[in-house]
């Protein structure tokens, strides 16, 4: 059982290049999230998805696009990379709300993808 897998783990880009980060989960989770973490900072939510075909913006969505064509995969795209997007990117997934409405909130994280934009 792999859990949450991120690909690639490291990448160096030049300003203006594009790339896609792939997140795959094998836990049949409904919710998936993309966060970025800058040195010495907490995690900031970029985009999230509550199900196949549905995405929404988080705190810092500018410069990123996402897609959730399959339930198990959540893709994060950078169309024109900028040095300000140098960061470590974490994907997470979770169960949806219980039938009773209470949300347990446990997120399962990947190991991170370190992106450097020169």
């Amino acid at each position: 059982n792999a859990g949450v897998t991120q690909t690639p783990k490291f990448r160096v880009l030049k300003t203006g290049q594009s790339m896609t980060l792939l997140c795959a989960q094998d836990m049949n989770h409904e919710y998936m999230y993309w966060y970025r973490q800058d040195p010495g900072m907490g995690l900031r939510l970029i985009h999230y998805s509550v199900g196949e075909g549905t995405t929404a913006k988080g705190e810092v969505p500018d410069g990123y696009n996402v897609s959730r064509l399959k339930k198990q995969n959540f893709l994060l795209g950078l169309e024109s990379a900028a040095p300000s997007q140098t960061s470590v990117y974490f994907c997470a997934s979770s169960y949806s709300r219980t039938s009773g409405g209470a949300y347990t909130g446990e997120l399962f994280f990947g190991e991170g993808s370190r992106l450097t934009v020169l």
Partner: protein
Amino acid sequence: LAKTTQPISMDSYEGQEVNITCSHNNIATNDYITWYQQFPSQGPRFIIQGYKTKVTNEVASLFIPADRKSSTLSLPRVSLSDTAVYYCLVGDPTDSWGKFQFGAGTQVVVTP
């Protein structure tokens, strides 16, 4: 939006108890409080979760007062390996889709 406030850092010696308090004034009625631990170069990992009163597992205890506007994570007898950043997380009460936002976290440093 639900916001959490934690101390930026805490220092401790091995064998001591560490208590980290998180404030979350806008917590929703049905939301749980969850704490995560993050080591350098790793993703956060779940350590404990609770709704009210006290929860204890093999790693930590979580104390939640009746008004649920704060919570305290207690790490008993810490060791050097407990040096990490600890995040308090609650559900966003204005977003029924379960969007979660992390705060800045608390850097705990344990020294011999």
